[in-house]
């Protein structure tokens, strides 16, 4: 591999890679092979082991790098994107990879239910031209940020599409071949001997186990049953951090954002002052310190350091100011209602801190821990009873993707029923802005989001991975998905 390939600066120290061996990985979530179209935490460990994307995005250098496409080009008017495909790539089934596979993938992204997360990018797609290894996408309007979508969208095999949809067959072009999936137990993947990157992968296979209880997961690592443990809780991370037998990696993507949304149609959250007061009252630093062991970054704005929207000053917005919060409450006029704070079980402690913070400025709260089913229902009907705490993973995206796709805060039909002409207008501005105008557009948009305070972030946390010291060369991408092509065990 060359230097510009992702994962070149892999984790776990350096040395001369040694082929062979199976890497055993424990993850707390049960994988969900039927939901492989989109990135999600359950499939983080294996999706990119089986599938490749057209391009990748290097978070360090903030630039697009090669994937199945070796070059990419956007026309001057922004309405045409030309991709040159890598040659000599074949599917795990042995069929050669070609331009029609790209067409099929994009079709699927647009049309499937549930749809591809960033499908909006293709809303103006007019046609796909294929000639040899070149694919040309024609749009009716200029596109920006298509590379977010291209680096997230795995290229899928049309022949095995039915299996892809129900999760029974996964045929990709990636370094590992789908082996077996045992619900409740794990996944096994074996080496793709015909991987297009010669000599890769080093490993003979991956074995992924689901260990849902975090204590059990940590002790599986500590008792050497597994080589790696994924998605450690911050606390569990601390218990292995001090142990020199292990390497601990905290992703620098800070790809999981805890947010607080407020249904703007509910009293008293329909008053902007109250929403602002709430965010001034929330002790973000404390939440970070106590719940995430200080490993996250506090931020009210929804941009993580890897996002093009990131700016330090926004991260500092709404730093805790009880006086200001109180005066805002006072200015908002009398409040009769108790504010309902809703959250899923995993966010219950955060909800408790938020509720406590609100009590400090004289707001009464009622915590409701929502069942998954109820959350789904709330999502569907966009009917949160008041505040809602949850995680989103949109913060590493380009801002434009957030305002068009992220359910909590997209311009249309967001979860918290916030809508304004100005918001829509600023979003369009950003969508059509040229690279030079983009920063200003982002700034305006961010200011509005912060001011309206209908959905702001609290902490951006990073994914923690622990591994035995003999694990080297693995890496992760901007979407927090793991890359094992260069991984090896010593």
């Amino acid at each position, binding site marked *: 591999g060359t230097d510009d390939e992702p994962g070149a600066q892999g984790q776990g120290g350096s040395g001369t890679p040694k082929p062979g061996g199976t890497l055993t990985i424990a993850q707390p979530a049960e994988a969900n092979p039927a939901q492989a179209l989109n990135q999600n935490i359950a499939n983080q460990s294996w999706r990119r082991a089986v599938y490749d994307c057209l391009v990748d995005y290097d978070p360090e250098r903030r630039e697009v790098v090669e994937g199945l496409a070796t070059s990419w080009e956007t026309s001057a008017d922004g309405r045409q994107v030309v991709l040159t495909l890598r040659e000599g790539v074949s599917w795990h089934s042995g069929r050669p990879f070609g331009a029609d596979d790209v067409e099929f993938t994009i079709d699927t992204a647009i049309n499937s239910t*549930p749809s591809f997360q960033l499908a909006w990018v293709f809303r103006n797609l007019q046609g796909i031209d294929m000639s040899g290894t070149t694919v040309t996408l024609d749009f009716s309007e200029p596109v920006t940020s298509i590379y977010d979508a291209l680096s997230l969208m795995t290229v899928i095999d049309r022949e095995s599409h039915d299996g892809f949809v129900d999760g029974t067959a996964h045929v990709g072009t990636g370094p590992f071949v789908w082996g077996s999936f045992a*619900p*409740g137990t794990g996944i096994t993947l074996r080496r793709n001997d015909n991987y297009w990157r010669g000599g890769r992968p080093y490993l003979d296979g991956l074995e992924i186990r*689901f260990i849902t209880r975090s*204590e059990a997961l940590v*002790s*599986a690592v500590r008792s050497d049953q597994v080589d790696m443990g994924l998605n450690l809780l911050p606390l569990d991370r601390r218990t292995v951090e001090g142990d020199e037998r292990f390497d601990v990696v905290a992703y620098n993507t800070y790809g999981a954002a805890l947010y607080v949304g407020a249904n703007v149609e509910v009293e008293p959250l329909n008053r902007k002052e109250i929403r602002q007061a709430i965010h001034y009252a929330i002790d973000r630093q404390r939440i970070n310190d106590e719940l995430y062991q200080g490993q996250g970054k506090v931020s009210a704005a929804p941009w993580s350091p890897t996002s093009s929207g990131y700016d330090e000053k926004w991260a500092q917005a709404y730093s805790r100011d009880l006086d200001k919060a109180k005066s805002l409450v006072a200015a908002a006029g009398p409040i009769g209602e108790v504010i309902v704070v809703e959250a899923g079980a995993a966010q219950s402690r955060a909800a408790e801190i938020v509720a406590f913070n609100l009590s400090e400025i004289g707001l009464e709260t009622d915590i409701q821990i929502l069942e*998954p089913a109820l959350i789904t229902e709330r999502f569907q009907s966009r009917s949160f009873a008041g505040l809602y705490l949850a995680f989103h993973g949109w913060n590493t995206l380009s801002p434009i993707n957030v305002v068009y796709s992220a359910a909590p805060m997209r311009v249309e039909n967001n979860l918290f029923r916030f809508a304004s002409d100005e918001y829509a207008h600023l979003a369009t501005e950003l969508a059509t802005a040229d690279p030079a105008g983009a920063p200003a557009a982002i700034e305006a948009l961010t200011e509005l989001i912060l001011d309206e305070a209908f959905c702001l972030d609290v902490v951006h946390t990073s994914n923690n991975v622990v591994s035995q010291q003999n694990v080297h060369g693995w890496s992760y991408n901007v979407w927090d998905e793991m890359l094992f092509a260069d991984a090896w065990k010593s």
Partner: protein
Amino acid sequence: MLRYALRRIPTAVLTCVVASIGIFWLVQLLPGSPVAMVLGEQATPESVAALEAEAGLDRPFVVQYFDWIGGLLTGDLGVSYVSRLPIADLVGPAVGATLELALASLLVTVVVGLALGITGAVARRRPATVAYRLISAIGFGVPEYVVGVLLVFVFAVTLRTLPAGGRVPLLEDPGTGVQHLVLPAIALSVHSAIVVGRFLETALNQQMDEEYLDTARAKGASRRRVLWRHALPNALPSVVTVIGLRIGHLLGGVVVIETIFAWPGLGTVLVNAVSSRDYLLVQDLVLISVAVFIVVQVGSDLLHAALDPRVRLEA
């Protein structure tokens, strides 16, 4: 004996049927659709309806019920609403894991329980009695999950002598398999073993006051013979019933212990199914556990009858 079995089994089948109707009816009572969860955030009334139709949920209650039961009887557990995998595939691998754990704990329960019970009944005013009382009083009060957590803390985290969780199938690698099995099996059976022990002790002590033991002694039978040939065979039938009930309890306990020890068994599948509201899967799993419980009860009743001629012959 056969007549006894013939009388006992229809009742058991009836119980299973009533339980299945109950479970099925509960799901029907639910507000909303069981498939809504699957579609998640992007559900629309149309997509829900489509998926319901696909899953056959739009048919009349009775048809659905018989379809479900008919499927179960032919070994077709249906397809999970959530993962869209055949439930048999989800449940299949877990059955072995749970069976392994359950049998191991049953073994511990029976062996330790009988040993404790006999010690308790035989030991008098010796350190053994004191130790026995202490173990039984404390062990009786400690829930299995507490035992589980403490075992992990001591053996896996602090001493690092045994793995904290996960499973290596016993048949694949007996050595490692046993290491993985020890802690969960112990955690799961401590309480049951003590219950069985206490019960046996009481039953034995009751027998000890019975006159037929005096008869045996009057014949010149040794103390050992009195215990093993007379008291124990009489105490055992009722203990068999208790062990049967403990197996039922064990089915419940398995759920927590599997969660704590990351044991990929039915309990784990059940907990996941509940969290993801995979109703059909929950329905199947609960009915399976109920059926297993009932089969165990019938088994223990039959064994009881086999051990006790009064029941066997009077039926």
